[in-house]
């Protein structure tokens, strides 16, 4: 494997709440190979989303990195202050979250919120800004960028809203995209469209993608490699074929079997 573009190294995160301190991540290491889509798989509470939030410097209240490094082309993001991180989020690492409806601000048109993102990072004349927004929307497979640019989030279908979120994440041309359950909650045929779009963007733009998902089918079809998380640690990682076909870890084996829904019927003929 070529030198990873992003490396999470032995990351430890704890969360302090009224109920005490809990170790959410206990030594997570993940490497993202340039231009590849890497799956980060696990169930509720496994720590997969927390890993993404730690990478982006967006831990929830009470969350704290206690050890480890997040290296983006060798530079430790955990050493950066919030101001510097703001120049990482967007221009270097884009993000797509699960529910496109909550990712978009309901009171602003698509164009206005995309313009806000651009304004925060680049100084573009108005016409170039308009142009850039429309070309990004088209890049995300939106057939009528002009209409969608003027629309408000509630006027968009779930699939269209997720395309807008993806277009926004790519506005500042990041090289890494973190997608946290980007298709959960979307209808099956729309999920397939969005995954095809992400795979196409990965190929065409040479994007490096971290795909956080609970769905091993997404890993099998769209990722190149995968890391499996359980209870705050990575229990297995490697090429997707190796991991899915002959899982070495007990938890991975359990997850693969459960995903296949094996042995549920006890022999009633159909």
């Amino acid at each position, binding site marked *: 494997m070529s030198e990873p573009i992003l490396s999470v190294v032995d990351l430890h995160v704890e969360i302090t709440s009224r109920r005490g301190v809990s170790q959410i991540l206990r030594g997570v290491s993940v490497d993202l190979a340039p231009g590849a889509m890497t799956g980060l798989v696990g169930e*509720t509470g496994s720590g997969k989303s927390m890993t993404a939030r730690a990478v982006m410097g967006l831990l929830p209240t009470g969350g704290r990195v206690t050890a480890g490094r997040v290296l983006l082309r060798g530079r430790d993001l955990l050493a950066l202050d919030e101001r510097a991180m703001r120049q990482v989020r967007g221009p270097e690492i884009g993000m797509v979250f699960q529910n496109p409806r909550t990712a978009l601000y309901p009171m602003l048109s698509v164009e206005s919120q995309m313009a806000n993102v651009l304004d925060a990072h680049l100084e573009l004349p108005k016409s170039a800004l308009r142009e850039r927004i429309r070309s990004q929307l088209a890049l995300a497979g939106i057939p009528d960028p002009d209409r969608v640019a003027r629309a408000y989030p509630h006027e968009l279908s779930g699939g269209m809203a997720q395309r807008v979120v993806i277009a926004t994440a790519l506005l500042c041309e990041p090289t890494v995209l973190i997608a946290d359950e980007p298709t959960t909650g979307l209808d099956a045929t729309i999920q397939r469209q969005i995954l095809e779009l992400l795979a196409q963007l990965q190929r065409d733009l040479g994007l490096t993608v971290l795909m956080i998902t609970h769905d091993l089918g*997404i890993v099998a079809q769209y990722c190149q490699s995968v890391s499996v998380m359980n209870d705050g640690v990575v229990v297995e990682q490697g090429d*997707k074929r190796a991991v899915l076909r002959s899982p070495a870890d007990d938890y991975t084996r359990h997850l693969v079997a*459960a995903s296949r829904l094996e042995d*549920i019927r*006890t022999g009633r003929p*159909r």
Partner: protein
Amino acid sequence: MSAGEDAIVVEGLHKRFKGRRGDPDVVAVDDMSFRVPTGRTLGLVGESGSGKSTVARLVLGLLAADEGRIEVLGRDVRGAGREELRRWRRDMQIVFQEPYESLDPRVRIGEAIAEPLRIHTDLRGSELRRRVADLLEKVQLDPALETRLPHQLSGGQQQRVNIARALATEPRVVVLDEPTSSLDVSVRAEVLRLLVSLQEELALTYLMISHDLPTIRTVCDRVAVMYLGRLVEIGPVDAVLSHPEHPYTEFLLGAELPLDPDQAPKSAPVPGEARVGERPAGCIFQARCPLRVAECESAQPPLAHAEADHEAACVHVGHEHHVPGAG
């Protein structure tokens, strides 16, 4: 009712919801007919807006239909009064998608399961408590959990409690409305295993709503595919999911992502989206269909037999046809 009869009969069902503030009405269910034999499972699949959850509520009399016939266990649900429906409810129950939302957060598990028993039976005191303990055991939960509150249970345990509640009054028909779609995959498998074994033990008839084809394949005998309120295909699970006759069913299957990295999805992605409120004169699926011909634009094709018990509403039924990318 003896085996071999139909526990659920639905014919010519229609339901429309009034549009809000001048919006056009939404046709949720448009001429739907199906039967579920006693002790069997019919799966209802479709995407959001397909009307599958509405059908479930109509069948149980939780919503009033506009037209059509609904018979559950030989009883006319549409003709029934409020009081009759209430009495019948002990025979026809429902398990919803969100396990936590379905439980009162302040009511302990034991009491939650006892509630339907108090309403529908004469069980009280130690008999009632024994029955609650039995039910907890039936859904493979430790009877000691009866003193817990819902938030102290995992999602899978909460859903088992909902199943125990639904089974408390010994119903014969149970509607399962996406019972595992908010659960993790390993929990999904356990809950499905439980539902299958309960059905075998208690001869339950299931109407199962799901958008998850692996779940349908595992649990159901027959499957009905809905698109924007219309039944587009119905038949035995193996036939429909191995030899789909409707292009929409093919696309649903194509959207399924094989767990084997070297096995490609069964078809290319279908373009476009289902638009609720868009009801063309002809076939309901024509806007997205790659196999559209002139005929499709003029009249909605009726269900046509591909096999004796396998029907699809497509002009191409019985002819060799494949959507792009299908193997």
